[in-house]
């Protein structure tokens, strides 16, 4: 049990870290916007004329910043309640949803082939968080 808990904790912490460092990673591998982050990046992509139904610049920007914020939240939750607690699981689920949305949005805006390390990092982070909270640390497994 302790080994499972330790493993789940480690994986969850790494997953949260991946979400956090996405702030500093390039989200577009090449072309316009590859040197930008956050609001500037999304402004640039939207300025390119690529539209995503229902996704305004403000919504996308908020979503982009929510992802690393959830990474930070996962650390807080793991530290206070453990890797498999209900709060951590809730954070993991919300992170997975946000990551799916933001990666899809960026894929549509910049082209999936041009996505940089950022989307990959957050995808890994969300998967790691969910795995730690629901599978690795699950009691009885």
């Amino acid at each position, binding site marked *: 049990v302790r080994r499972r808990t330790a493993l789940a904790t480690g994986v969850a912490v790494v997953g949260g870290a991946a979400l*956090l460092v996405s702030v500093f990673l390039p989200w577009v591998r*090449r*072309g316009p916007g590859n*040197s930008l982050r956050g609001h500037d990046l999304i402004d640039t992509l939207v300025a*390119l004329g690529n539209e995503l139904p229902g996704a305004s610049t403000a919504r996308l920007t908020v979503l982009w910043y929510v992802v690393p*914020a959830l990474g*930070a939240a996962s*650390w807080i939750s793991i*530290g206070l309640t*453990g890797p498999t607690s209900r709060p951590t699981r809730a954070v993991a689920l919300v992170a997975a949803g946000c990551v799916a949305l933001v990666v899809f949005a960026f894929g549509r805006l910049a082209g999936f082939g041009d996505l940089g390390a950022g989307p990959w990092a957050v995808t890994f982070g969300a998967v790691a968080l969910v795995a730690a909270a629901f599978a690795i640390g699950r009691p009885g497994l």
Partner: protein
Amino acid sequence: VSDTNELLELLATRGTPRGADVVLAAARADARTHDSGRGGGGAGARAGDLEVLDPDVDDLPPPAVNLSDAAPRGRRRPWRTALTAGGLAAMLGVFSLGIASFLGEGGADSPEGAVRRLADAMQHEDPLAAVDVIAPDEVRTLHQTVDAASARAAEVDLVRSASAPLAGLDVSVDDLQLTSEELAPGFAKVTIVGGRLALDGDVDALSDTLRRTVSGIAGGEIDLAAAWDLQTSTRLVDPFVMVVERDGHWYVSAAYTVLEFLRIGEGLPEADFGSGRAARATLGADTPEAAAQLALDAAATADWETLLSLAPPDELPVYDYRAALAQLMRENLDPEFTVDAFAAQATRDGGRAVVDVRASGRTSSGDAWELRDGCLLATTSEQTEGGAVVPYSDGFCLGGGGALPYSFGYAADGRGDAAMRITAVERDGRWFVSPVGTVLDYVDTWVANFDERAFASLLGDFDALPVDGELWKGTPQRVESDGFGLMYAYTLQGTAGDEVVVEVRDAAGNPVSNVVYFVGPSGDDAGFSLMFGERATLPVTGTYRVVIGTDGTQPVDMTVHDADLAPDDVVNAFPDVYDNEQCTYDAFGGVSCIGYGSSEATTPTTSTDAQDIVLEGP
């Protein structure tokens, strides 16, 4: 903690409510039914190491438990506290970044930071990131133009991908060292005191079309700190970039940089920084039409201060440099023309208007000038060899399509296919003529019409041109062009040794100077070009591709003759060109003649002095 909670919840909800004695007795019995020392507890309970004791044996009291030996109740482990603290700090950081991002609108926190961001954007070959750090007023509509140009470039295979228009170029800025000096509140001059700009390229990363015409990209390195020689003056200018502050952020200003370079290079009076923005409500004109007319009148009367006051101060800060620019214009410009008629019609869209302008007048020499049909034309007259005086127009036209967005000289005569429009913008209730908006509107229109034919024509890539028809010797082929500089290709069956001559006439039957290119059957045969009346001998037998370059949208008729069957006026035309003393030759092998055809002609040709061209086969 969470595991303990789950176990307690499970324990509390199993079975039916019983008294404590019953529960303890059942627990003892349950423990004894399992392996000794292993413990039990039923479903959900976990194996443990507790020994099962019987309190009734010998009425002995239960053994004392030394509490000091028991494991202390778990305190929060340090790493968990650290993780929580780290999470809180990270949350704060992300929150701050997000807030700063929403509050910020590009630019940088310092003058030098703005220049470094620009260098970083260059290093990443990211034009839109560069636009983000340039003063927003100056590039208000540049995003749209860059986007449209990138998309169109990808469509015509100028670039591989619209999302990476500069793929293939490798730009690096190293060891950039800067110093800054505030010239006025909100205006700073950032001097480059060190750094290198290296440029390299990878031909393999270029589009297929470009690879056909570009054999290599010459790399190089520039010392960014080396003084700039502006050529127009004797002064060397230390390299610098002007930056301006807008809403607390610093941006690179292309306009201020250019104007300040000009001022220093020419030794002109200093700028009155910010005066244009401050006086904006008192500059400009009441209406878009009035702004256009005022600008034209000011240019005609050399009222340079008024002309400079009609440019939007935020877009083009010429008003700040009015003393310098007016002095420069007085010393170098002498317009000498009158405006006798003016008509303008504005179409407003919010704070923006497009003004269609028609105007006419006289130059100082008495020639008529006219703004019409997308052209600025000056009409004069010449005396032919026969003594007749014939008028002809010269000038330039704006084109909405074609290989280039404009045409000059002879080609301008009535061949503009875009209206002469001026873009005006409203600022604080006043209307200004927008030079940037006017230019970008034309560029946007031209880009929208730029296609594979325009690209192939621009590059001279005959192989990429579509075949528009088949030529038969002696039969005129009508060529209707969509724009200036476009090329049209036709096939022609030829036999080695055939001597051919080319005739091209406009719709009125006048000879015109379009150049006709012959490409051999295999594509890489030695090609050649002919102008009206020029003769050449075909080097090989096969299907030739005959390509004609066009000067505008007016149709022309092209005929390829066997030389011995050509009309006399065609056969005899070419020697006249070279015998004409009014013909001059330029460094590129081109020939310009007065009296050739009906107008001045500027015609590039591969020949310089031979009437007959005999080419070797491959």
